[in-house]
């Protein structure tokens, strides 16, 4: 971001470039929605309060990985990171920081969901269950996503895709899907 590349500013170009990636994202999001719908039993009966944590957990994944993709895009464009799959110090700092953030923020979301749930009188809230689901789902999807983000960012750079318009939305969407799957699996296994 902030790289002074001269961009063709025609409405048509922006729309055509953007739509291609957005239509793909829409399809992936509908799959994520289907996973959420399959959890309706857990959400309504066995794990009341879990639904509170779902929008923030999906959002968190998009934020961490969108920012990671964006930062990698800038680093690749400015030559700070080389477009090859080896662990440089800069790449390592970026990945480790996104892992630590995933853990800390997922734990915070779990606790906040429990706190807010208690405050608003959601009965029989399963404190341990919700915090565990938030942390495991957040960290597991975070590890998978960080790896995919690095590969996609490098691939996109080599192909000349714009990190702002392509990589960040794609990563946010893949993140939504993987997070939904992780929450679903952990919810079934843990509770």
């Amino acid at each position, binding site marked *: 971001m902030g790289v002074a590349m001269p961009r063709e*500013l025609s409405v048509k170009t922006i729309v055509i470039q953007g*739509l291609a990636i*957005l239509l793909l994202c829409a399809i992936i999001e509908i799959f994520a929605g289907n996973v959420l719908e399959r959890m*309706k039993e857990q959400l309504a009966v066995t794990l009341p309060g879990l639904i509170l944590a779902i929008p923030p957990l999906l959002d968190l994944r998009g934020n961490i990985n969108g920012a990671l993709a964006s930062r990698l895009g800038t680093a690749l464009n400015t030559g700070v990171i080389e477009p090859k799959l080896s662990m440089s110090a800069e790449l390592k700092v970026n990945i480790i920081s996104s892992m630590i953030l995933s853990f800390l923020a997922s734990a915070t979301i779990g606790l906040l969901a429990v706190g807010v749930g208690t405050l608003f009188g959601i009965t029989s809230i399963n404190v341990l269950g919700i915090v565990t689901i938030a942390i495991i789902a957040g960290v597991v999807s975070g590890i998978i996503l960080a790896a995919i983000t690095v590969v996609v960012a490098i691939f996109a750079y080599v192909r000349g895709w714009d990190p702002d318009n392509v990589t960040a939305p794609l990563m946010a969407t893949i993140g939504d899907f993987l997070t939904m799957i992780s929450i679903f699996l952990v919810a079934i296994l843990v509770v």
Partner: protein
Amino acid sequence: MAVYSLRRILWESYPILVLCAVISLSAGLILDSQMGSIKAFPLILVMVPPINGINNNVCSILGARLASALHMGTVEPKLGKQKVLRKNTRATWLMSIGVFWFTSAIFFGMALITGMGLSRSIMLMFAFFAASMVAIAVTMGCTIGLAFLSYIRGLDPDNVVIPIVTSIGDVMGVTCLIIAIKIVMGV
């Protein structure tokens, strides 16, 4: 000299992520308070990730483009007639209309296949489309405002504007979706 500092990334990102979590939690609270409608009409759950995800993607693209344009000086941080700003907002509108029509059409197909009947499937398609248009209009307004504000204040749009915009997008998406489904489908 290291370009990135672990401490700096964590220190700058964590407070914003918590603020975003609090905003997004209100979207969760709204969903929880509507559990009755969701039980009666579980398709609402299928629609939540798409309306939030697409809304957030479209506004993230706009936010990123505006941040770049502000740094290059092609957009100035003020409202009023500006060619580049107008082109960007028009492109964002056209993209939203395209992608949300596509998504609404898929929901129409899904409703029809699951035996909802033609007229109710069409109503569902329009409900989703209307909800997404209202949500995107409000979120786009917030994106432009926050992009200007962050540029004036010198904040990094990647770490600040886009996370906050996507959280506001979650609340808008869920709110508009629930209201539209309640009015149109009567659940």
